């Protein structure tokens, strides 16, 4: 009986590892694709060819061409750079900012904690994307401002996780022992607190990559993100949505790209969560 359960767990563990390798390499492929996008495009993504506009998918243009005759495949590949880079930048900013605020609140406590947490409550009380639109509207369009807007609404989640984890750490005997060892605050935060809380935070940020990518694309779709002619998946969809009924490939190509990359990052996030789960790590 016991042998059967042991075997079952082993198989489950192995699938987690296989999934990690699979989705990890897919995500890596996506990243490489965006880094080397300049060399992968079959055509110049900004070169207009009005004589060949709105052409359906063919051997020469796999995803067809848009209303200016630009090759859709090339634009989707180049767009990956804008989309993926800005998403990773956004997730990086939000993770770092939220963690810093949360650790500070949890460690310091007292009135600073109360003030910062009430501020984060305020940010959480607004419907996220609407608030981001307002911020982006005030700051003016552009990819940079879209990132700032989304960072402004997303940090409270990370601050909350980091804060609760820090509070839990503060109560542990090993942290008291570190205090008694005469280590200063910074040393304790970087050597003991941060390494012990970073796991769940990283998992959350992995899971958020997909959401952030969609929200950035959403802002761009609304005209508050990347400006034309910059190839960005959200704005590409928005530019061409009038062609959806007659020339669907023009809209569907960037949509498909968003779908695939969000999917890959979500699955990777899920897998990392499973992998980091102490229950799945137990022998």
């Amino acid at each position: 009986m016991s042998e059967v359960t042991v075997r079952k767990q082993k198989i489950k563990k192995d699938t987690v590892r296989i999934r990690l390798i699979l989705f990890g390499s897919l995500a890596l492929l996506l990243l490489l694709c965006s880094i080397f996008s300049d060399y992968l495009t079959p055509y110049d993504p900004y070169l207009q060819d009005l004589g060949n506009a709105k052409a359906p998918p063919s051997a020469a243009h796999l995803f067809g061409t848009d209303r200016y005759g630009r090759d859709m495949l090339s634009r989707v590949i180049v767009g990956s750079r804008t989309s993926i880079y800005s998403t990773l930048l956004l997730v990086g900013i939000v993770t770092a900012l939220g963690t810093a605020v949360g650790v500070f609140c949890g460690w310091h406590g007292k009135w600073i904690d109360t003030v910062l947490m009430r501020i984060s409550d305020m940010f959480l009380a607004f419907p996220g994307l609407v608030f981001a639109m307002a911020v982006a509207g005030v700051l003016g369009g552009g990819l940079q401002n879209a990132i700032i807007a989304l960072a402004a609404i997303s940090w409270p989640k990370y601050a909350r996780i980091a804060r609760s984890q820090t509070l839990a750490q503060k109560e542990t005997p090993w942290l008291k022992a570190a205090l008694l060892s005469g280590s200063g605050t910074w040393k304790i935060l970087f050597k003991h607190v941060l390494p012990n809380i970073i796991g769940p935070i990283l998992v959350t940020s992995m899971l958020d990559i997909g959401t952030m990518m969609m929200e950035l694309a959403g802002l761009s779709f609304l005209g508050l993100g990347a400006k034309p002619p910059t190839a960005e998946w959200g704005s590409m969809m928005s530019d061409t949505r009038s062609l959806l009924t007659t020339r669907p490939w023009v809209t569907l190509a960037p949509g498909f790209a968003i779908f695939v990359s969000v999917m890959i990052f979500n699955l990777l996030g899920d897998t990392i969560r499973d992998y980091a789960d102490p229950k799945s790590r137990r022998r």
Partner: protein
Amino acid sequence: MEPVLKVSDLTKVFTGRGHADLTAVDHISFELHSGECLGLIGESGSGKTTVVNMITRLLDASGGSILLDGRDITRVRGKELRMAYRKMQMVFQTPADSFDPRRTLGDGIGESLRNLGLSREETKKEVARLLTECGLTPDFAGRYPHEVSGGQCQRAAIARALSVKPRLLICDEATSSLDVTIQKEIVALLNELRSQRGGELSILFICHDIALVQQFCDRVLVMYRGRIVEQGIPDAIIRDPGDAYTRRLIDSIL
């Protein structure tokens, strides 16, 4: 001779939110002399741990004063507090949790040595010496807390506490989570370390096992509901308890 630790009128009141305030420690005073081993016993909730947390300044006192080696440490912070930690160290109740799970035992023991300004090499040598002194082998420095047993971990915790050559060692139920034979070993180790250091090391031994206190301590304080209800030599108290709670405590064992 000046006592190593002098606690006067120490009080801790936890302010209630929506209910009455709780006086966890109620004006307690005691002295701990150089080289002495003082036991502190009492049931759960009697305030033993609160007293210890106030002495180690992990918790702020509501009133009273704590003098360590003649210096008032009741309100010290930052650098001064870190200086106080060179004279006072602590061994915790749960050995496995008293070391950072992501760092080796050697890292944990060496942390205060590094903070004292020792080089990496010196620290490594000193950690090996401390481990040997506490009945472990130097290779334990490379192990993680989950790779050693509770007793071994507690030995490492004692090694860590002794690394700064403290005058006062506080053992907060340091033997409670270990089984009886290992308890004996740890107490024997503490006894040995104390006799090696002559009058240099004083121990405040928090415990709820009166039999262990009788074997190990020179003097004992009995706490009940935040007050010290009785103090004296363990044998005398066990033979002739003066307080109703102490009598109950002794009756429950014998």
